């Protein structure tokens, strides 16, 4: 028996919103990055699920590339957090607020 597409969509929406929750409430910059990863992977879930329903492998290959991009983004992100720590002494994102009104 096939899993209905709604459930895959629901799953990916849930993962996405958990990641979004993390972005909205987390103060540590590393957790922030982890939440971003969650969101990206939620999109991956969707891609893979629908590649099955459309009987086309494009979704799965695309998901691979998305993962590669996520890795690249994390690399740069960690570098930015490093520079952030150097300048503000803390990786709390609510501390680095000099670009404000």
């Amino acid at each position, binding site marked *: 028996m096939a899993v209905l597409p709604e459930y895959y969509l629901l799953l990916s929406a849930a993962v996405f919103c958990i990641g979004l929750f993390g972005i909205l409430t987390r103060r540590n910059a590393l957790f922030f990055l982890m939440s971003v990863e969650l969101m990206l992977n939620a999109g991956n879930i969707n891609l893979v699920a629908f590649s099955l329903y459309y009987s086309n*492998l494009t979704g799965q290959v695309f998901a691979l590339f998305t993962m590669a991009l996520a890795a690249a983004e994390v690399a740069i992100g960690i570098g930015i957090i490093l520079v952030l720590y150097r300048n503000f002494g803390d990786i709390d994102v609510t501390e680095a607020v000099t670009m404000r009104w």
Partner: protein
Amino acid sequence: MTSRPRRVPFDRSLLPGLAAVALFVLMAAVFLSADTAPLVESWGFPQDASVVGSIGAALIGIEAAIPTESFVVTLLIIAIALDAALDGSLMLAKRDEAESGGETVADGGRDSTRTDDHAGTGGDR
């Protein structure tokens, strides 16, 4: 040891999370009310085709068992992007040779040219 269950005080900083909850509710409402009958009728890959083999074939641009698009150019671009990310993170991690004093706190790592007592005091920040 046992300890009484403590009530976790409600952290006000969690309130923005309600926006994420609202988004989930909205998306759930849309997805559950969608009609996916056309999708369910014809799904699945052929039983005897190799999925991984087809992925590999798609990556290098040759014909594969399961229909897919060609991702050759994308592969090359991703290779360049990963390369750029590597160089970028190395550049960010490197400290400037001539430190500007004052506001910047530059103890993101120990400076091998400094003396030990100086390094000790730098960690207090």
